[in-house]
């Protein structure tokens, strides 16, 4: 025994094992097993739960390629993911900068609290609150008409912009948090050095701040893009007749027609597409980061 433990790296692993075990056990039980079950389901003709005879098939995957509508929806969902991510960058990055470099002490804590507040409320409640704000005769419409001298009609509910607004609201805190961490780590003396060498504000941003905070931007973008592409709750509730996306079709397969095999196959195709996109983007991102 003593001889085995002697090797340095192995003893490191051994002592780390009790610390790693809970996390890996949990991942195995909560992620790996259900995912494997779903992989299994996606190759079946019928759900074994249904009590009918089942066999292995590739049909669930070929359905995706034989029907144009899944492609159309997947592209629509990817575009949605891209747009939401961009809005999160435009809104979240400046906020993170102000939090990390401008505000100090109490005021920083207060603003920080406001940023993460959405995390503490239920997602469904947030979406229904937006429904009250965005509809015709809703809070936004009434408030603007009360203030403005002319009559305007704001009815954003059940539209593509409504879906974007709802999703950006849900996901912007990720961008603020990841960017805040990297921005805060930038040494102030670097900024001072840049200034003293005569760099303008824009030059500072372009050559110092953005490159140094790039890891946070990339992490935030990945954290937002992936779930948004598969989102189904926000499009369904806020999108109205334009609210059909790849995620809602998967949800239909699981909930409405109980075709889990097809739903699982569509999910894994989405997973594959997202992984390919991340893989293609990774050289660019790595260079940037």
């Amino acid at each position: 025994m003593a001889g085995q433990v002697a090797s340095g790296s192995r003893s490191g692993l051994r002592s780390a094992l009790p610390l790693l075990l809970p996390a890996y056990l949990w991942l195995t039980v909560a992620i790996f097993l259900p995912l494997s079950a779903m992989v299994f389901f996606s190759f079946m003709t019928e759900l074994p739960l249904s009590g009918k005879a089942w066999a292995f098939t590739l049909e669930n995957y070929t359905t995706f390629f034989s029907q144009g509508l899944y492609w159309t929806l997947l592209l629509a969902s990817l575009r949605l993911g891209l747009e939401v991510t961009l809005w999160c960058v435009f809104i979240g990055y400046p906020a993170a900068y102000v939090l990390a470099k401008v505000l100090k002490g109490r005021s920083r804590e207060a603003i920080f609290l406001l940023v993460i507040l959405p995390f503490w409320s239920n997602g469904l409640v947030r979406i229904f609150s937006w429904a009250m704000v965005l509809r015709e005769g809703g809070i936004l419409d009434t408030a603007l008409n009360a203030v403005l001298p002319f009559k305007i009609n704001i009815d954003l509910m059940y539209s593509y912009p409504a879906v974007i607004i709802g999703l950006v609201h849900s996901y912007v805190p990720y961008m603020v948090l990841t960017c805040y961490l990297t921005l805060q780590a930038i040494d102030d003396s670097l900024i001072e050095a840049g200034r003293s060498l005569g760099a303008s504000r824009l030059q500072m941003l372009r050559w110092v701040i953005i490159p140094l905070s790039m890891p946070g931007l990339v992490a935030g973008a990945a954290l937002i893009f992936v779930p948004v592409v598969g989102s189904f709750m926000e499009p369904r509730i806020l999108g109205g007749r334009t609210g059909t996306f790849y995620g809602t079709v998967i949800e239909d397969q699981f909930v409405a027609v109980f075709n889990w095999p097809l739903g699982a196959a569509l999910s894994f195709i989405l997973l594959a597409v997202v992984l390919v996109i991340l893989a293609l983007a990774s050289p660019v991102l790595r260079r940037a980061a």
Partner: protein
Amino acid sequence: MRMPKLTAFLTATAVVTSVFTLAATAAEVHVLNWKGYGADEPWAIAAFEKATGNKVVNDFFNSEQEMLTKLRTNPGLYDVVMINAAFNDQAMAEKLIQPIDVSKIPNYADISPDKAGSPMLARDGKVYGVPWVWGLTALAINEKAFETPPTSITEMWNEAHKGRVVIRDDAVEAVQFGAIATGQDINDIKDMEAVKTKLTSLMPQIKTFWSSENDWNQMVASNQIDIGTYWSGSADRAKTHFKLPVALVIPQEGAVAWLDAFSIPVGSKNVAGAEAFINYMIDPSFYVEWVTKVGAPVSANTKAVAALPEDAFNRKVMGDPDVAKRIQFQAPITDAQREAYLALWQELKVNVK
């Protein structure tokens, strides 16, 4: 996409574990039904438990497919299940439900003969389903938007209501609605292209696809819609219970009718309790209280309907013989048809983007 997969798996495990943990005991009546659909009203359960000594345990489903799966995976757990008559055939063929001895259900004698004699509920002279309530998927209007109520289904296509029309997010319902609009038999759609063309031209009119009663009522309450497909019982509930400006319209072209019935699953451990529960559910006293307190579809029990006030919607409008001529009852649908309908419906929804 992790969320639906995870919830789906959790449902699967819940279904499996419930087999082991929830073994029905004799004095309990396990009821499987939609949530908020009569059988789980607290006052009704209290009255039934007091009268018979059986304890009611409710379980719910969110779709007919889920209901069938729960029956398949939990043999012996449920004593009463509420099945849409169009699905009774499938449940019977899979030997999920057993014949019912109607002589043990006194109120069965008062069920209207056309419902009790529905070929969907009986096989080889044996009764597999006791008709409970029936209703329509027709149109409902926002009374603020109409001087006089429309009479035709074509009102849905009227330019004046552009962007203020709703339809339920359900492939079968949408296709059958299209069949009525094109003058076809909902159970034998010959010209699917006509249905598709008709529904395609409806899409630009649509505000959103509703999925729950609450969606519909909210949109009327905030005056966002003029007209849409709606269930008769829900329209009644919206008017009497929520005091909304809603009126049901049964178009001259017709409407889709459905019949809900109670069955006893194979392996039920408390058949006597199940019979007592079904008898209570079709009893006039329960029905009148349900209509008054909550709002309900039309009872299949003629005496229960007759016990309502003369001008009650479920008696006056739904009992009108002229309405009976126009409506078409939903017949069973094959899996292949269901998938074809879903494909058509998804295509329509995608093309509208």
